[in-house]
């Protein structure tokens, strides 16, 4: 019985993550439009897009292509289940951050396998750019995660949230300021927002990995991006803003972070890959290292 209850709850969390992610993307498009002084699509535009995509026919390049793209989305959904969302914490005992990060790598591996098995060189170039960029932003992010680990002397997110309870002042955001800034920039890279979206550059490599995705595969890609937004911002909230008493505050906090990323996205042009990686290894890494030194000494 317990298993069945947990199953329902995890489906709920999965659905929540998809809908919140799509909502964030819709609102994001609205805000970017507002920045461009135009009206922009209705906030639920992304829901419409997803439904349209799933109703369109599509072409596929073999079972590795289908398997890969489905794996991409479902691995992220599996990772979301372990994320403590507000007061819903399905598996408190083993919500270890490293495990969630590695499950996300499973999603990237799945998507990468699917996309590059299509045989379109644009797709593989996109993937190689995305992976190089991942190498870029993972370095400061790792520095921050492990300094939080050592600061809170624990590896599981539930304990980290518990360590930050009680008022705004002892949020990690305040106690580890440099770490938060470095993580914020790394988040920009993780979400694939504008300065770091060289992987899906429509002009240079015909929208990179998505070049061969049509119909429902593009739908899966969009779902993966949505769940990815929810997951990454969710991790940041749990790490730095002390989780949330209930789901709505959690979503609002997530939106705060996403909002910053949106503003940066609307303005900055796109980096070249090596510029992006070397940027990530200059200032954010420096901040992360300073934070680590502070924590260790």
């Amino acid at each position: 019985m317990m298993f069945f209850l947990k199953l329902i709850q995890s489906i709920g969390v999965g659905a929540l993550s998809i809908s919140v992610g799509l909502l964030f993307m819709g609102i994001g498009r609205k805000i970017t439009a507002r920045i461009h002084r135009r009206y922009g699509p209705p906030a639920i535009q992304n829901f419409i897009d997803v439904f349209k995509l799933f109703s369109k026919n599509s072409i596929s390049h073999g079972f590795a292509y289908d398997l890969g793209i489905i794996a991409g989305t479902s691995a992220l959904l599996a990772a979301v289940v372990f994320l403590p969302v507000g007061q819903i914490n399905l598996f408190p005992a083993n919500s270890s951050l490293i495990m969630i990060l590695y499950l996300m790598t499973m999603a990237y591996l799945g998507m990468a396998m699917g996309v590059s098995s299509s045989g379109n060189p644009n797709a593989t170039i996109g993937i190689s750019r995305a992976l190089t960029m991942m190498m870029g932003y993972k370095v400061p992010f790792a520095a921050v995660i492990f300094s939080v680990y050592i600061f809170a002397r624990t590896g599981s997110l539930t304990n980290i949230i518990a360590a930050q309870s009680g008022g705004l002042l002892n949020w990690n955001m305040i106690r580890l300021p440099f770490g938060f800034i470095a993580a914020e920039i790394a988040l920009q890279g993780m979400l694939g927002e504008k300065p770091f979206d060289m992987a899906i550059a429509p002009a240079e490599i015909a929208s990179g990995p998505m070049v061969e995705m049509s119909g429902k595969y593009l739908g899966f890609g969009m779902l993966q991006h949505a769940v990815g937004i929810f997951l990454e911002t969710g991790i940041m909230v749990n790490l730095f803003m002390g989780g949330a008493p209930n789901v709505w505050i959690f979503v609002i906090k997530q939106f705060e972070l996403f909002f910053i990323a949106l503003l940066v996205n609307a303005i900055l042009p796109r980096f070249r890959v090596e510029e992006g990686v070397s940027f990530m290894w200059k200032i954010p890494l420096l901040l992360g290292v300073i934070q680590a030194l502070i924590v260790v000494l």
Partner: protein
Amino acid sequence: MNSNLIWLVFTPLIGSAIAAILYNYKFLDRLITFSTFAITLFLVFGTHVGQTYSMNLNFMGRMIPLSWNVTHLSIFMLYISIVFGTILTFYSLMDRSRMKGFLLLLILAANNWIFTTNDMVGFFFAWELMGWASIVSVLGGRKERKSRHAALYYALMSIGGSYSMFFGLFTLWRLTGSFSISSNLAYLSSIVGVHPWWVLGIVSLFFVTFMIKAGIFPFHTWVPMAYAYAPDTFTPFLSAVMSKYGIYGMLLFLPISLMEKGMPTVFGLPWVNYIFVWIGVITAVLGTVLAFFQDDVKKLFAYSSLSNLGYIVAAISLFTSVGVTAGIYHAFNHLLFKGALFITLAAVISRSGTSKLSEMGGLWKKMPVTFFTFFIGIASAAGIPPFNGFGSKWLIYQSMIKQHLLFATILLFLASTGAFLYLFKAFHSIFLGQLSHNYDNVKEVPVIGQIVEYLLMFAMIFFGIQPGYILRPVGLIVKSVGLNPLAVMGNGYVTGMFSNVDMPLIGWSLAISFVFGFILFFISAKHKYVSQEDNYTAGQIPQDWGLTPETYQFSWKFYEPMEKLFAPFYRIKIDGFFRGLGDWTRITGSAVKQVFVGNAQIYTLFAVVGLIILVIAGWVA
């Protein structure tokens, strides 16, 4: 007293003799190799902890006691190495690679002897035997000239290593008068408090040998050449099992350093261990960085096993219960997924005929089973949860954080991300992308190979989901070494310091989300399959211009931007020291040759001068 141990060593020797005789009947030779491995496996089932056996060797006019005893560690190592060897030889039944059976059996004999011996002479004899047998088998690689250079380089390093063990062996013998390892170790740990520098000197003599064989930072330069140019079916054994001998040696000397109380500690670790942790971390990062830009696939995976060994050394040299468990667990995992990767590579190379990444591509259509094994192999090598690589990497991070080694953990995490990068590059360049037309008639691996691949796939997933089966014996080893073992709560759990990971739960959540994915996939509009040429590459259809459609596989300079970033690091040649030493000896050699210039007067001059010197010496004394 159990003669079973002796048979462990002698059956492979007899087997290798038979294999040597039947050398030119290719299939018979491989059949014998496989059956000998199977018999030895059967024998290992018979051995159990605590068995001892001693035999006297008539040497130097007196009787030297050769003794064997079986500890938890040796049983563990015996099982994993022989099981893997059986799988490998079963696979190589059908692979016409140039691997010589009798050499592998010699190595197997040495392998059994090293793991069970309790005396230095036996250990050294088996170490040297394994050394030269592997040198000669590396010699038989596909590319003549290159495998000869690789074999020579490897020979110099491993012989240099065994000579340093020679020194350590006999200095210990001079101090304690006996050859048995256990009593010598006890002696060393007793005098460690009195003058630690002495103990350090002797232990470092042994550790040089183990680091060379395992391919750790300062002595890693031979690893890529030897792995890349060894015969295709020998590299799995070379990289998966033989690199573990170095680790086994380090584990042997573990108890001594535990007692080092007198040592000044850094970060709560004796400073020696701290250095070794950093050596491990440097090897891990070095392996990853060098692996990015390799075009030869076996060299790429050689660097990857280099970096994985860096992980193991970093974890073991922490000497905490979590660290050692993580190290040994990762050693097992590395053996499993690296073995699987190299076996699939052997299959791919034997089918496609080339080992260059830029020449392959799109093979997943032709070799689906190999494709899936390779996929699961790189997934577990990158440490993705449901597969077996994750548990140990996670434990290593836990152990490092517990010791507050923050920067080492960051670098290790960086190395593991880098691992994902070059693993995907290999995966893409071989299997994904466009299938070039000269591979149109590539067939799948024959049935034997497929059975092996299914077996390996199952093993990787099983040990990923149920790590308990490995953690329990590893716990016994840790207890035997004197640390309190990790609590193993049921088969599915990997318990770390702060939280634990329930692997079956991850498996379940993945499975369920996959089910949802498939449901969504099938209820939405139908899709049609399309050939590889029909993709939007924004180009003109070649047929219209009378050209034959060319496939364009993006695999040359896969991480070109990254190369620009790492270019400055590549100028420092790491193996400059060893090349310099080689050139120096060559120059002195030719200089010395001038001595024998070839006419009688000079020789008589030498003789007279020698005589005069002796007379003066006599006069002075």
